[in-house]
């Protein structure tokens, strides 16, 4: 019994930092509608800056003063990020901002590496709180007790700020209708900056406060962001008490998980989230997202038109060039092009549900990696012939998408995105922790194509035919009645339903199709590389695809393909440099700010402007 209590207390103590970070994310999302992926980076900055300040400020006063100052410092950094990166793009489509925050993650990662080096740092102990107190005979670290004691005060302070102050009233009003708040004389820009700074400060405090229990390392940002999303979604986006309850729930669960089910700690969290969302789709204390008439910003969608003769000629020339490529280039270029084709198909499948369906999936890697793993598992365990195993890749990924889609499609917007993320993490943790079957992070190796396909050149044509075929097929579907129904559901679910379209069913089918196509890409991938590792299922993989789609342009059909080409080349070039993340992050941010319509969208707008200058200048 005493052991249980001690475990429970540890969980409660762990909840403190998690709650701080999650409440900051929730706050930022509530007002700016930005899902700030860089929030984990602010947490990491909090840890590093905290250590630095604790080293120069001595004693107990110095320790707590350092924590306080850390939050302020991180808040200032957050304000700068908001002003420089996000402020220019608030009018861009919501998810573009998300890509920008991903760029911020990369930049901060490399800056942290430059400043603090790659070594993990152990956090200093809190002066005067080094030992343990015994509770019913069980040792509980003193610092844990202090954390448990101050968390309610933090919750109360935030609650007071949000419900009782003018700033809080403005924040809540802006959460609902920011344009109206502006029309009443409130400068939203400063409100946004203020909220972003406060949210970042909370993350910074979280990072500093956990130091005596942990430390600082360069993986903290990604490690916490999954848990934070889970907390915010379980609690309900925008609900502080919800975030608190969920932080406690997840932290306690983790502590017990480590004790009793050490193999499934990662899975556990996401299972809980999935269960909560199935029972309460908007989280424990959250409310349904009202797709407000006034929530929409930016220009309306331009209808997608089939290519004119020029476009068709360009595509034909590109295909011809690809077909003749082996005559001109070396093996390395061919392999790079295979990568590009695989990535293009993967991105096109995400683009299909995202651009045409309006379904922003954060977990598309589940189907890419899922397809790859499906084929690899068959070959590895049962020696299935390559041809059969290859066919199994899209099939299995499609089935997986049917299963995941059944849960996810009923949600919309951010909740949909989060639930897809959770499921993909679930799939990832299975691959990572179910070593008996998947060999964990040792991966599955020796998955080679049959002899008739084994030459690089032959496999290049194989990949090219299937990849291009898949992309053309998706394109064809978008221009079919099914595609019209899908786009109608994206633009106005209600009106689409009023015309007799079963929107959810159309979306469900599209989700499964996109999953199958991502699986096909995974299939081509696994036999090209001869191996598959859990990294193919990681969040980062899903984000790669998201970034590519946004860079290419969401509202254009060629967006995914062009983005994939751009990304493969840029990455190949950049990763040779030492601080490539910094550069890649800056490139991403620059593209987002300079070309808010994506590469293809910007080119298209330019092209139209050149052709229609006479009309426009009337």
């Amino acid at each position, binding site marked *: 019994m005493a052991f249980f209590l001690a475990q429970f207390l540890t969980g409660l103590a762990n909840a403190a930092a998690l709650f701080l970070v999650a409440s900051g994310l929730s706050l930022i999302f509530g007002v700016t509608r930005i899902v700030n992926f860089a929030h984990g980076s602010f947490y990491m900055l909090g840890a590093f800056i905290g250590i630095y300040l604790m080293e120069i400020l001595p004693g107990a006063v110095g320790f707590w003063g350092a924590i306080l100052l850390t939050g302020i410092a991180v808040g200032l950094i957050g304000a700068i990020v908001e002003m420089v990166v996000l402020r220019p793009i608030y009018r861009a489509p919501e998810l573009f901002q998300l890509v920008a925050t991903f760029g911020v993650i990369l930049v901060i990662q490399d800056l942290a590496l430059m400043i603090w080096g790659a070594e993990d740092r152990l956090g200093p102990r809190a002066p005067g709180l080094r030992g343990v107190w015994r509770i019913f005979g069980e040792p509980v670290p003193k610092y844990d007790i202090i954390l448990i004691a101050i968390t309610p005060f933090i919750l109360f302070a935030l609650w007071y700020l949000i419900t009782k102050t*003018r700033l809080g009233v403005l924040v809540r009003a802006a959460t609902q209708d920011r344009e109206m708040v502006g029309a009443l004389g409130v400068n939203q820009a400063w409100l946004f900056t203020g909220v972003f700074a406060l949210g970042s400060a909370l993350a910074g405090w979280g990072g500093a406060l956990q130091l005596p229990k942990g430390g600082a390392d360069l993986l903290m940002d990604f490690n916490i962001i999954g848990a934070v999303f889970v907390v915010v979604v379980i609690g309900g986006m925008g609900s502080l008490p919800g975030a608190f309850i969920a932080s406690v729930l997840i932290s306690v669960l983790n502590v017990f998980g480590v004790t009793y089910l050490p193999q499934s700690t990662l899975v556990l969290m996401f299972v809980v989230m999935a269960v909560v969302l199935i029972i309460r789709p908007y989280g424990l204390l959250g409310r349904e997202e009202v797709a407000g008439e006034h929530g929409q910003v930016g220009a309306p969608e331009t209808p997608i038109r089939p290519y004119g003769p020029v476009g068709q000629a360009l595509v034909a020339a590109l295909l011809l060039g690809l077909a003749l490529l082996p005559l001109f280039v070396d093996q390395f270029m061919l392999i790079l092009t295979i990568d590009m084709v695989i990535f293009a198909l993967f991105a096109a499948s995400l683009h299909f549900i995202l651009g045409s369906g309006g379904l922003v999936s954060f977990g598309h890697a589940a189907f890419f990696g899922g397809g790859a793993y499906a084929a690899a598992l068959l070959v590895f365990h049962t020696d299935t012939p390559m041809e059969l195993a290859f066919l199994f890749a899209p099939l299995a990924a499609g089935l997986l998408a049917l299963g995941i889609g059944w849960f996810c499609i009923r949600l919309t917007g951010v909740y949909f995105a989060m639930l897809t993320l959770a499921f993909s993490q679930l799939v990832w943790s299975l691959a990572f922790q179910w070593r008996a079957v998947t060999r964990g992070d040792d991966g599955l190796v020796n998955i080679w194509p049959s002899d008739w396909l084994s030459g690089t050149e032959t496999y290049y044509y194989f990949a090219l035919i299937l990849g291009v075929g898949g992309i053309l097929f998706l394109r064809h579907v978008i221009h079919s009645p099914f595609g019209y129904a899908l786009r109608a559901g994206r633009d106005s679910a209600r009106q689409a339903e009023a015309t007799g379209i079963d929107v959810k069913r159309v979306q469900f089918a599209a989700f499964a199709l996109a999953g199958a196509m991502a699986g096909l890409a995974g299939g081509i991938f696994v036999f090209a590389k001869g191996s598959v590792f859990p990294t193919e299922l990681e969040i980062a993989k899903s984000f790669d695809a998201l970034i590519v789609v946004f860079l290419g342009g969401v509202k254009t059909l060629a967006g995914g393909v062009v983005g994939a080409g751009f990304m493969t080349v840029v990455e190949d070039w950049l990763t040779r440099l030492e601080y490539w993340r910094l550069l890649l992050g800056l490139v991403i941010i620059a593209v987002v700010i300079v070309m808010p319509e994506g590469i293809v969208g910007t080119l298209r707008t330019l092209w139209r402007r050149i052709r229609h200058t006479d009309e426009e200048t009337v």
Partner: protein
Amino acid sequence: MLSVERIHSYYGKAHILNDLSFEVRRGEVVALLGRNGAGKSTTMKSVMQLVRPKQGHVVFQGENLVGAPAFRVAKDGIGYVPEDRRIFTDLTVLENLEVGRQPRRHDAPHWTIEQLFEIFPNLEERRANRGKHMSGGEQQMLTIARTLMGNPSLLLLDEPSEGIAPVIVEQMAATILKLKAEGLTVMISEQNLHFARAVADRAIIIEGGEKKFDGSFKELEAHPEIRDAYLSV
């Protein structure tokens, strides 16, 4: 006080306002009349810079507003009550009023919450209620009160009588006259000619985003063909 000069406004590619010009003088109540889709709301939004005119000027107290952010326009003294009310449904009545609060202005009447509760007694009873639990008429009063908290010198009221019970419409008319008596300049957009005549000094009629009539209600009565052509009576 306000001078709209040859503005052109668009929604995407749709050309909504076409070369529209008019004036609002200090102390008067002007009614902007026209059918559904004539461009009344867009006119209001173009003044407020919620829709940005692509050409022309919106000059308020000697300053061109085109291109300024909406919050600037509000701070300059233009209060805007949107047609669809847009109260903050999760906030209480008092909190809604708090959002609208701005410092007092030397050239405009100053409002306190107590004074507003005198004008809109229903709101006082419901001061702690959330916006979503209020009737349409109460919500309309709340939006007006919320905007008055900003102590505007010019009030833009977009279709205040729309979707409200007739009794409340009469109350609304009395309220607008009271605001005028306090020295507020008001521009209302209306489809209800009867209501407009009861409160306004002057009528501006638009159709298809163009001005068709600008004059007193007496002149308008002298030309029933104008009324028949541009208003649905």
